[in-house]
C-alpha cells in the first residue's frame, strides 16, 4: 500500500481523468442524421426503379392518404406554381428536425413520398440523400413539375420525353458524318492511357 | 484491501464497460449528411458544355472527364480525353485515386445529367472537392457543341460570339460540316494519377 501514500497525486490524476470524460460527453456532437445505407448499397439500389412517371403521378394524386408530393424548390417557386396538395420542403431544410420527424411519420404510415423539382435533376440528389438516410418510401417524379404540367395540359412537344438519359441523337452517326466532311480526328473514340504511379507503402521502423 | 483501491478498480472497469456501450462510430471517410446537403444545394458543381469544350480545346491539364455510361456506349462515342468508369463500378477501390486528385477537376458526364449526378452524389460523400458534372450531358453537348444552332438575327451580339465559338468547337470535335479544314490533332492525353500518400507514423516504446 506504499503507493497510496502519494494520495494527492492519484487523486489529482483520477479527477483529471473523470473531468476529461465529463467534458467529452458534454461537448460530443450528436449527428444531425445518420446514413442507413452505405454508398455501395445505395449504388446497388439505383438499379431498382424508384421513380414515378407523370402518368403514375396523376393516378397517385387521387389518393392523398397513401401518397404525398413534396416540392423541394424554394418557397418562391412553390408559391408560383405547385402540384395539387404538395408540401413545400426546400432542399436546405430537408434535414431539419421537424422535417425528419415528418419523414419518420410518413415512413411509419407507409406513405409514398414523391419528391419533385423543376426537373428530375433537381430532385435527384435530395432523393438520393433521403433514400440513403433510410427513407426507402421516397421517390422521384420523372420530368419534374414542368413536364407534368405540360403533360396534364397536353402541351407536350413532339418527342419530348422525361427520360433524360436516352441519347437524343445518334452520336456515332453524327460524328461519322462530321468526320467524312473534314478530317477532324479528335472525335474518334479516345483510348485514354492512364498511368497510375504506385507508391510503395513505407514501412516505418520504430524502436524500443 | 483499501477502499481507495476498490474505488479505482471499479472506476477502471466501469469506464471500460462504458466503452462497450458507445454507439458505433460513423465512418470517418464519409462526410455527414448535413455537409452533403450543403454540397447538394450548391449549384456550382454544374459546368456548362461550353466551359468544358473551351478547357479541352485549351488543353487544360487540370481536367479529368469521367464517362459514367456503359463501356459499349463509351466505345460508340465519347468526348475526347474522357475516361470510362461505368456507374455501377464507380465505387470500386481501383478508381479511388482517379477520382481524388489534388488540383484536378473531375467532371462526370452521361447522356443526360441524372447518372452523372448520381455518380457525383456517391463520390462526393467521400468529402472530395473538385467534383463537377457536365450539365445536360452528351445530349446538351451535341445540341451546343457538335450541332450548334445559329441564333436569331435579333439576338444580342453575345449570342453570335457564342455561336462563333460553338462553330469553331464543332470543327474541333469533328461534328461540323462547315467546310473549314482546320483539323485538330488527335490528343492522347496521359493522365498521371498521383497516389495519395499514406502517412506512416513512427512508433516507439
Amino acid at each position, binding site marked *: 500500500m506504499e*503507493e497510496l501514500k502519494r494520495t494527492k497525486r492519484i487523486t489529482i490524476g483520477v479527477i483529471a*481523468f473523470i473531468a*476529461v*470524460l465529463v467534458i*467529452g*460527453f458534454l*461537448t*460530443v*456532437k450528436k449527428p444531425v442524421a445518420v446514413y442507413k445505407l452505405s454508398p455501395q448499397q445505395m449504388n446497388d439500389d439505383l438499379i431498382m426503379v424508384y421513380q414515378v412517371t407523370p402518368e403514375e403521378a396523376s393516378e397517385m394524386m387521387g389518393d392523398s392518404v397513401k401518397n404525398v408530393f413534396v416540392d423541394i424548390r424554394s418557397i418562391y417557386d412553390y408559391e408560383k406554381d405547385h402540384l395539387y396538395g404538395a408540401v413545400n420542403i426546400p432542399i436546405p431544410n430537408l434535414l431539419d428536425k421537424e422535417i425528419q420527424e415528418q419523414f419518420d411519420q410518413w415512413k411509419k404510415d407507409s406513405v409514398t413520398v414523391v419528391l419533385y423539382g423543376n426537373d428530375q435533376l433537381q430532385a435527384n440528389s435530395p432523393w438520393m440523400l433521403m433514400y440513403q438516410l433510410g427513407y426507402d418510401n421516397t421517390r422521384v417524379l420523372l420530368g419534374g413539375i414542368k413536364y407534368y404540367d405540360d403533360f396534364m395540359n397536353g402541351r407536350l412537344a413532339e418527342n419530348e420525353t422525361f427520360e433524360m438519359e436516352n441519347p437524343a441523337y445518334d452520336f456515332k452517326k453524327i460524328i461519322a458524318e462530321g468526320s467524312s466532311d473534314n478530317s477532324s480526328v479528335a472525335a474518334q473514340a479516345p483510348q485514354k492511357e492512364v498511368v497510375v504511379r504506385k507508391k510503395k507503402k513505407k*514501412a*516505418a521502423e*520504430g524502436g*524500443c | *484491501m483499501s477502499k481507495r*483501491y476498490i474505488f479505482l*478498480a471499479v472506476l*477502471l*472497469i466501469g*469506464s*471500460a*464497460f*462504458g*466503452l*462497450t*456501450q*458507445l454507439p458505433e*462510430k460513423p465512418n*470517418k471517410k464519409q462526410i455527414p449528411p448535413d455537409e452533403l446537403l450543403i454540397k447538394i444545394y450548391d449549384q456550382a458543381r454544374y459546368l456548362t458544355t461550353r466551359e468544358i469544350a473551351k478547357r479541352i480545346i485549351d488543353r487544360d491539364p487540370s481536367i479529368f472527364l469521367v464517362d459514367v455510361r456503359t463501356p459499349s456506349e463509351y466505345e460508340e462515342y465519347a468526348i475526347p480525353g474522357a475516361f470510362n468508369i461505368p456507374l455501377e463500378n464507380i465505387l470500386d477501390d481501383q478508381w479511388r485515386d482517379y477520382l481524388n486528385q489534388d488540383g484536378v477537376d473531375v467532371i462526370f458526364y452521361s447522356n443526360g445529367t441524372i447518372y452523372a449526378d448520381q455518380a457525383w452524389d456517391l463520390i462526393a460523400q467521400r468529402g472530395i472537392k473538385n467534383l463537377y458534372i457536365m450539365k445536360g450531358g452528351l445530349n446538351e453537348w451535341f445540341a451546343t457543341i457538335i450541332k450548334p444552332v445559329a441564333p436569331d438575327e435579333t439576338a444580342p451580339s453575345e449570342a453570335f460570339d457564342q455561336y462563333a465559338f460553338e462553330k469553331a468547337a464543332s470543327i474541333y470535335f469533328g461534328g461540323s460540316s462547315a467546310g473549314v479544314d482546320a483539323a485538330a490533332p488527335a490528343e492522347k492525353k496521359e493522365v498521371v494519377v498521383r497516389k495519395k500518400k499514406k*502517412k*506512416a*507514423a*513512427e*512508433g516507439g*516504446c
Partner: protein
Amino acid sequence: MGPLTYFGEISTEWNYVIALFIGMAFGYIMEASGFSSSRKLIGVFYGYDFAVIRVFFTATLVAIIGLLYMGYFGWIDYSVLFVHPTFVASAAIGGVIMGLGFIMGGFCPGTSLCAVAIGKLDGWVFTIALFVGIFLYSQVFPWIEPLYNAGDMGHIKITEYFGISQGWFAFGFAVVAVAVFFITTLIRRKVKDVRY
C-alpha cells in the same frame, strides 16, 4: 498530421515539441515509480515487488480507455495510428531473449537509460552492453534475416484478428488487469519482505 484532430491539423514541427514533452513526462513517471532500480524491476520475478506490472498495466489501460473515448468524442482519429507489422515467430523468440536479458541484467532498455540518467553504474554497464549487442546483431543479421521476417502477419490489430469490438476488448483487458492487481497483492503478502 498526427492523430490529434481536435484543434485541426498539427504541423510536424509542433509534433516534435509535443513529443519532447511527452518524453519528459514518460521519463519523470519512470523515475518517480522507482524504475531506475534494477532490484525493484526484478522484484516482479521473485514476487516481492509488482510495481512494474502495476504501472505498465495501469498505463496501458488508461491509454486504451482514453484513446477510445477521445476517438468517440472526435478529438483524435486513431485510424491514422501506426500499427507495427506483426512477426509472430520472431516476436516469440525475441521475447524469450528479452526475458532472459531482463532477469539477468535487471533492466529493460528504457529503464536502463533512466538509470543512466541518475548515474547508476549498473545502468551504464547495461547500456554499453546493449549497444555492443546491437552492433553484434547488425553483424550477424544477414545470417538470421529469415528469422527476422518469420511469421509476418502484416499490420494487424488483435481486435481485427479475432473480430471483436474495441470496446469489449478494452473491457476484457480492464477485468484482467484488475484481477492481476488483486492476485499480485495476494502473492506479495505471502512472499518474505525484501529490503532494498
